[in-house]
């Protein structure tokens, strides 16, 4: 899925859609500028966990 992101001149940030994924899902993150996608590889993996 794709979510909108913001760029403040230094970093890109976005609000994680936690309700879409399950506990212990690993999720890759890729940045898309103007429909060109940049793969983040290892640094772009996020683990979802249950509080």
């Amino acid at each position, binding site marked *: 899925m794709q979510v909108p992101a913001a760029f403040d001149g230094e970093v890109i940030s976005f609000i994680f859609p936690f309700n879409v994924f399950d506990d212990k899902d*690993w999720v890759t993150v890729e940045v898309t500028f103007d429909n060109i996608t940049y793969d983040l590889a290892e640094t772009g993996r996020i683990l979802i966990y249950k509080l």
Partner: protein
Amino acid sequence: MSGNVKIKAFTSYFFDKSSEVAVCKFEYTAKNGMVYSGLTNVIEFDAEGVICYLMPAIRLSSELFNSGGIVQMSVSSNGEDFSNSLPFTYLLNVTITEVYPQYVPVNSSLPSVVTINGANFFYVNDTGLLAVRLTRISKNRENVTSR
């Protein structure tokens, strides 16, 4: 952008789009005033214009490759008489160094803001899109093969 990308020029009065010598020209003016130019063949065309491969930045200038910059693009049906030119910007390759946090709660009642650090990020224009694509890969990271 490092090249190997198709670029389309929207044209009018293009004499012969199917000509074997129809080309796109890319011209870069370096900071010291030197002008570097290169040609790529027209590989496709339609009613709107012609499509060429983008000239790789390194083939034009190491300065352009290392710093990015604006290139003037024009087209020709005979390789000699060129159209007006329009600017095209080469941007440096985007690199990512960190995503933080790397762990996000699935059942939080508060929004989790994820931050991405890196280099050569750029603003997209009003009609463009800055987005993040999220893809589920595995329940168990050990099962994930390196990419």
